[in-house]
């Protein structure tokens, strides 16, 4: 590497971001050692009544939902023929790939014997389990995402031939990706259909798989906007004209779609409520919290998106995206933690420990660092000069 880049690297080494990241990484390593020497009990607040905590609620449920940008963007671009979103595909695929890889990585902490994670697929298949479906789909989809990501890698490495072969398979990969996503996004919700007695009626529904699937679309669209906004400043110098030119159009288009899908999600949630005739629960404490989720994190962003798109106001759209992302996290937390085991006395309820929070931050930090590394090295936000305008 040239002298110049080393100098730049040296200058930016002590940014606040890097300092915080370093602290989190060190803390994460400490907790990792504790986890694998002392067991789950030493670092988590999990217990016999609460077998799943933050690592499932955040790392798995939110992780998978927020990585939905991959299939939504590539479907919009390659299947629905919205070619102008092309520039958004690579960042979205990269985010999704890293997201899923980290989900699997984080599961290594949560499951008791992580090296057996391939067992359900290769040793003994529990096909009656919805978790089996989740595992199978996530495994295959992770591979699909990796393949979808490789063109950027091969362009970077200058491997033309294989890159062109992969690019030819784009359509097939996209369809496969959408099928797999539909299946496991909804199966994550379906995991909870087995526990009508443990999940609060306002959140329990036979429609949970549908809710999870539809909300994953909202999550995917919003994450693309949200993350485009986040990477805009630090990555600006890397973005080429095509990306920048299309970026505003992409935000408007995705904002419009998100507004509609959120509205639809709101509607089916209400239908679910009516179907189970759960109206009377709305007057309880859980009901109030349910209304906060529904009005503040579904109806409001849907409205904001609509206003932002009408006025072509990108700032409002970005706020709506942030709110939706937060709303997805609230929803997944509600199902996995807040409304789960609602019948237990307060003293037996679960609250995450510092160890669990540290590992979750650790995982997110690794994700951001990996994203930053790859997107500064490989053609993610710009088209590789050798392959310009090929699509």
């Amino acid at each position: 590497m040239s002298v110049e880049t080393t100098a730049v690297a040296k200058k930016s080494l002590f940014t606040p971001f890097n300092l915080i990241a370093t602290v989190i990484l060190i803390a994460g390593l400490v907790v990792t050692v504790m986890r694998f020497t002392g067991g789950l009990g030493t670092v988590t607040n999990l217990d016999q009544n609460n077998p799943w905590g933050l690592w499932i609620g955040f790392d798995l449920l939110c992780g998978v939902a927020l990585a939905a940008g991959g299939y939504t963007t590539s479907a919009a671009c390659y299947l629905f023929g919205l070619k102008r979103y092309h520039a958004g595909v690579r960042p979205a695929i990269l985010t999704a790939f890293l997201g899923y890889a980290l989900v699997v990585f984080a599961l290594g902490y949560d499951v008791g014997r992580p090296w057996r994670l391939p067992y359900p697929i290769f040793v003994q298949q529990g096909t009656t389990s919805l978790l089996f479906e989740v595992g199978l789909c996530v495994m295959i989809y992770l591979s699909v995402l990796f393949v979808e990501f490789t063109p950027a890698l091969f362009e970077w490495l200058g491997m033309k031939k294989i890159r062109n072969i992969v690019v030819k398979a784009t359509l097939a990969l996209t369809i496969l990706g959408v099928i797999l996503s539909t299946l496991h996004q909804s199966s994550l919700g379906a995991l909870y259909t087995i526990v009508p007695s443990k999940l609060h009626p306002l959140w329990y529904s036979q429609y949970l798989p549908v809710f999870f699937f539809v909300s994953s679309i909202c999550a995917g669209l919003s994450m693309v906007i949200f993350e485009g906004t986040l990477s805009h400043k630090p990555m600006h110098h890397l973005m080429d004209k095509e990306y920048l030119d299309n970026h505003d159009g992409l935000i408007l288009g995705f904002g419009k779609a998100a507004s509609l899908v959120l509205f639809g999600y709101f509607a089916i949630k209400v239908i679910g409520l009516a179907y189970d005739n759960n109206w009377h629960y709305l007057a309880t404490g859980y009901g109030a919290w349910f209304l906060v989720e529904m009005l503040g994190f579904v109806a409001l962003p849907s409205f904001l998106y609509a206003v932002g798109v009408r006025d072509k106001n990108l700032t409002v759209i970005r706020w709506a995206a942030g709110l939706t992302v937060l709303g997805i996290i609230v929803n997944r937390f509600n199902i996995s933690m807040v409304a789960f085991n609602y019948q237990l006395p307060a003293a037996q309820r679960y609250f995450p420990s510092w160890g669990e929070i540290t590992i979750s931050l650790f995982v997110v930090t690794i994700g951001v660092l990996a994203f930053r590394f790859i997107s500064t090295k490989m053609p993610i936000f710009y088209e590789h000069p050798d392959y310009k305008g090929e699509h």
Partner: protein
Amino acid sequence: MLRRTFLGLLGAAGASAALATPAKAANKHFGPHPDTHGVLFDATRCIGCRQCEQACNEVNELPAPAKPFDDLTVLDVERRTDDKTYTVVNKYQTSKGVFFRKNQCNHCLEPACASACFVKAFKKQPNGAVTYDASVCVGCRYCMVACPFSIPTYEYDEPLTPRVRKCTMCYPRLQEGKLPGCVERCPKEALTFGLREELIKIARKRIETYPDRYVDHIYGEHEMGGTSWMYLSGVPFSEIGMREDLGTASAPELTAGPLAAVPIVVGLWPVLLGGIYAVSQRNAKVANEERVKAVKDALRRAGDEAEKKLHEELGKAEQASQRRIEVEVKKAVEEALAPKEEDAGTNEEES
């Protein structure tokens, strides 16, 4: 079950039936097996002596408890099972005075744990016991999430080889023809082991014979699709810490819908997405053709216009040159005539 048949047909029609059909079939074949045994617990007979707890601890070779089994003060707080305790007896103050209730795995006829486990570590044995195989368990703990009775427990302190722990209905002892440890030890015959069918008959008989003593309900006969352990009580079951809102649908039934949706998605999605793709391609093609045509038209129109203009220009130019010629001719004529006139003038003057 019209809906099921319909979904089944669709599933079979789909290319993907391979994944879903065995899932659905297996989903329904946990039980009940004709040889299903069980235990009937009678809360009106239990005196809370904790002998069953001790027997369980001994036959399963579990670690010694913090307080000895003859210390009955532990009954003052409600306890639950854990990885070192497969069964507990709790004391309840009820509308009819103090009652005790034993808690352990209920060995469901269609166990939630078994249907939830993604490596089939749990198995409903023909004799009724639900057993667990630690050699394949991944430790995901979905079984714990799924069990409506919150029975499976986990070795949270084990860093590398944690196991799920729960009552096995003393499966190894049953194989040897022995009774479950707790049943054998109970001094009050609050526990009765036998064929599940027989147990239901015994329970009915007791309720009929002593209608004042029992509430008219055999807990576990239908709860969550039925369990091998069943309960009789003198007070409503909610008063002895048992949930009465579990319903009769078994866990596999609860998840049958989402599982049945899998083949539909796998079968239908490629078709739909392919359709959407085709439409969008067609749109793009039409749009493209239209663009090409528009360009051609524009070119043609531009061409026509240019020609017209050329004509006009040419016409104009012709006119202009015509005029110039006329002017020139006129000029020449004038020039030619002028001297003559002059001459004529002079001539006239001269003459």
